[in-house]
């Protein structure tokens, strides 16, 4: 948040500010706060096969937390989250490093950054589908490998598998790592790096002992993005695993499809709690407030 600068303001300026912030507050209240409150309320409702029955029961939570499937699904989702987080962090960090320190001219920095950003503004679903001709049984990759004689039979694990899910996540979400880390890196004072180099540090030691500590806020923000996006995903897992993998989001959307709203709501509240705890852990680990 930008810090208010020390300028004098006339009394009505404060009211003016409140007035200017009101539309944002109103929209978020109606479309974020109230809906989440609704989720929490409905998670205590009862239901049968035709309708939701207002009330206060704990059966939904008992069903969610008591089922082995839930725990197994969380484990599966966490597995995806950890793998995708690790891959996007590594890729994103060095891409940001490349853009911030290897590319010298400002114009090219902006240009290449935009090249990385543009796909983010196009359809995710199309970007998922576009892996099909590449990874399929008769796809480009298998075709090439066969022609080169590297494999005898087409690889089956490429499409509709955990591999495809992870690949697609990395494809979709690496930018969420690159942007904040790049943003932290361009703010690093170049003289610090010169000083380290003059003191005899090799490039990798500069990265380890100067750049990584100073890029921590960016790393934390990128991690929060990737972790929350993967934890809540339902569409990538559904499309790219061919129905073979599970995720918490998918579990919720299946319950919605069966019109079991209170069960879905309880599941959603648990997911929200887990995601908020993970975000809290990242924030605490890096002490984001202090860094900002």
């Amino acid at each position, binding site marked *: 948040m930008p810090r208010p600068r020390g300028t004098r303001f006339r009394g009505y300026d404060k009211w003016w500010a409140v007035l200017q912030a009101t539309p944002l507050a109103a*929209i978020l209240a109606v*479309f974020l706060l109230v809906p989440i409150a609704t989720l929490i309320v409905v998670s205590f409702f009862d239901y049968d096969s035709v309708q939701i029955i207002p009330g206060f029961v704990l059966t939904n939570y008992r069903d969610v937390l008591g089922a082995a499937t839930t725990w197994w699904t969380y484990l599966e989702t966490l597995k995806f989250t950890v793998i995708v987080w690790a891959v996007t962090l590594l890729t994103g960090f060095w891409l940001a490093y*490349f853009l911030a320190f290897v590319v010298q001219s400002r114009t090219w920095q902006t240009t290449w950054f935009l090249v990385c950003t543009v796909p983010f503004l196009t359809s995710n679903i199309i970007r998922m589908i576009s892996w099909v*001709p590449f990874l399929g049984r008769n796809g*480009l990759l298998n075709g090439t490998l066969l022609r080169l004689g590297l494999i005898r039979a087409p690889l089956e694990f490429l499409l509709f598998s955990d591999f495809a899910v992870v690949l697609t996540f990395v494809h979709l979400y690496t930018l969420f790592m690159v942007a904040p880390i790049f943003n932290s890196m361009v703010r690093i004072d170049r003289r610090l790096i010169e000083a380290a180099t003059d003191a005899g540090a090799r490039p990798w030691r500069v990265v380890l002992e100067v750049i990584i500590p100073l890029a921590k806020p960016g790393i934390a923000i990128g991690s929060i993005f990737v972790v929350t996006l993967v934890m809540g995903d339902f569409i990538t897992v559904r499309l790219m695993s061919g129905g073979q993998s599970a995720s918490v989001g998918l579990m919720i959307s299946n319950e919605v499809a069966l019109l079991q709203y209170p069960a879905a709501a309880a599941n959603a509240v648990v997911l929200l709690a887990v995601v908020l705890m993970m975000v809290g852990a990242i924030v605490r680990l890096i002490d984001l407030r202090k860094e900002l």
Partner: protein
Amino acid sequence: MPGRIGRSIMIGCFALFVLFLYGPTLTIMILSFQGPDGGLTFPMNGASLHWFANLFERQAVGDFGGSIRRSVLLGLMVMATTVVVSVLAGLAFRRRFRGAGVLFTLTVASLIVPSILVGLGIGLLFNLAGWDPAWYGSAFGAQLTWTLPFGLLIMFAVLNRFDRRWEEAARDLGASPWQTFRSVVLPIIAPGVAGIALFGFTLSYDEFARTLLTAGSDNTLPLEIFGMTTNITTPVLYALGTLTTLLSAMVIGAGLFGVLLLRRRRAIRR
């Protein structure tokens, strides 16, 4: 900084990453020109516009024309709202006002709360209140919870570089708050505002996760495409992908061009 060899390796890796980023989309663009007998993968079985023509036959896909019209309209609505609301809020946050911290936390939360929860929550709220969910109501609101945080963050970046003395000078010369905003602040922040508009439109136009449970009975384009993935196994899917990606690309191009133009105008005026 890495040496000469290190640099070359990194440039090579970056090129590979760009290929990874754009390769798949380019592949389906090529495949959308399959001949009438062509399949979902290579080899190309002739080249034709057959699948594009197929798109516009009503029976081939659900309601392609209607969904694209709704998506564009909704994108424009979200864009206009995002621009106005984030610019106002961005200006407000330059002052200490009651609840500023809470509002900021709420905005960031809006970005990181899993999309399916937002969709489900709004869906349930409309259900309990007895309102009919529709793309121009519930889905519009759901998309705003996704675009507004981006808008506000862009405003923060823009205003951090904004020199307050321009504004103070205008005031000292007797300009009213509106005159100050209209002829001093707005021209200076215009490139950033164009950026917010670009984000507002494209994020809405392609939004899926928050729209799915809130759109009601009429589909937006991404929902239509998702429906197609489960029951259509011809390159018509790629044709639609190519078309909507080109539309996004045109909007992005126009947006970036706008940002550049406004920046240049600003540079000349100085």
